[in-house]
């Protein structure tokens, strides 16, 4: 970098540049805070760790609701199963037709092919 170019930068710009040069991490942190202003200050805190401890989303099941829905089905025509495999959540009570097949991995690994 030539001296002429340096001379034309303002003091603030120079400080910013130095900060970025000293710590690209801090520059990245600033970027993140700009995008997510509500981000908690301590990332290593128990929130992140606890999310880590619980893998996956709990799949709650109420046998009472399930059996009542099944009973209702018997009295009506069976509705056609939904064509898209959507997540069964919310108000919809799952019936045997709705549940995605619990996969049995009988398919051989492609590494052994």
């Amino acid at each position, binding site marked *: 970098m030539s001296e002429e170019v340096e001379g034309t930068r303002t003091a603030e710009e120079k400080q910013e540049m130095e900060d970025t040069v000293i*710590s*690209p*991490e*801090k*520059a*990245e*942190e600033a*970027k*993140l*805070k700009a*995008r997510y202003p509500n*981000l908690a*200050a301590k*990332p*290593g*805190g*128990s929130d992140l*760790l*606890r999310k*880590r*401890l*619980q*893998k*996956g989303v*709990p*799949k*709650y*099941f109420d046998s009472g609701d399930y059996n009542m829905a099944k009973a209702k089905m018997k009295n009506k025509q069976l509705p056609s199963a939904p064509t898209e495999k959507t997540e069964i959540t919310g108000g919809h009570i799952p019936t045997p037709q709705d549940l995605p097949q*619990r*996969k*049995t*991995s*009988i*398919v*051989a*690994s*492609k*590494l*052994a*092919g």
Partner: protein
Amino acid sequence: MAGAGGGNSDVQWCFSQVKGAIDDDVAEADIISTVEFNHSGELLATGDKGGRVVIFQQEPESKNQPQCRGEYNVYSTFQSHEPEFDYLKSLEIEEKINKIRWLPQKNAAQFLLSTNDKTIKLWKISERDKRPEGYNLKEEDGRYRDLNTVTTLRVPVFRPMDLMVEASPRRVFSNAHTYHINSISVNSDCETYLSADDLRINLWNLEINDRSFNIVDIKPTNMEELTEVITAAEFHPNQCNTFVYSSSKGTIRLCDMRASALCDQHAKQFEEPEDPNNRSFFSEIISSISDVKFSHSGRYMMTRDYLSVKIWDLNMESRPVETYQVHEYLRSKLCSLYENDCIFDKFECCWNGNDSVVMTGSYNNFFRMFDRGYRQDVTLEASRENSKPRSVLKPRKVSTGGKRKKDEISVDSLDFNKKILHTAWHPLDNIIAVATTNNLYIFQEKLN
């Protein structure tokens, strides 16, 4: 620059084999989750997200081609773990194989431990190449003979048959982990092994599956006070009383089981002091250790955090003796890597047979080797484009500055979906196994 190798700076690596499907549409079950050579290097095991284990066996070297070490071909494959459901917590238990560890061979059969998040299984892999023939009461196909036709008595004999390799589960070690198992490690005493989850480490006897001893418990009474989790654990290769475990905060604790039954008090704690001026939002996340491996000698251990590989001398807790940057250019991309979760990727690392070279994976299907003696490092790529038999791998380079040279790849062009998390080095020879998402590459040293 020639590739880094076992103490000799002139080692060049050649493509040997690639296993797995070519198509880009990768089924989740085919994602490779662990790779491990056995103690002789003759067998190579892989585990995948679908709970399956595939074992490859090295063909004996042929006299016609002394230039090539034997190829690895499928020896056995079996379904190790099935998906399960935890009714109490309403959570699915993935069948993904987190780790495979071989037991040292004691007789004709081979044994390995494989684990998913909750259950460890001991598998026996045995060969059958003879079968008894000439039963008195049964025909060869198994049907019972009409007793009226039995007029003489004969002794059944063993006759050769086509080799059959059978895998059978000998022990199932379950219900000992509330949290997710990340590591298993067989003790040098060959009688016990440890299993570690996020907060606890248990000690098992290989023969006894209905009880295990808890040897480390870092669960706080109040979960709000949780500050770190266990990320990896390993037994010392020859001191049966010693093991280490690493944490999400970048520390490694060494414990001695002779000191007490519960090893919550560490014997040594290895931690590199951090410059408080450089601390940022990302500091703790990138300092989390994703893998810890003792050297074969037992004198050193290696840790892998997000950006670097560190070698520690067990006699010095204050700082590592060597630090190697794997992909320092990612430090200025941490914001996007946090957003796409890549910052939480868990890379493993491994030593070569004589502890002179270490290897770890990176993105864009790149992997890195660091030669400790010659202070050289090399970046290589596992790709179908370099998959002509015995073609020498060309070193790759990521350009960090403004000017990108020909053959260099810029940081922004790296494919972060192509990650090499699992690599393994043959215990004796310069043969390496590198797993991309769903393919297993085997590379060998170029022999002249």
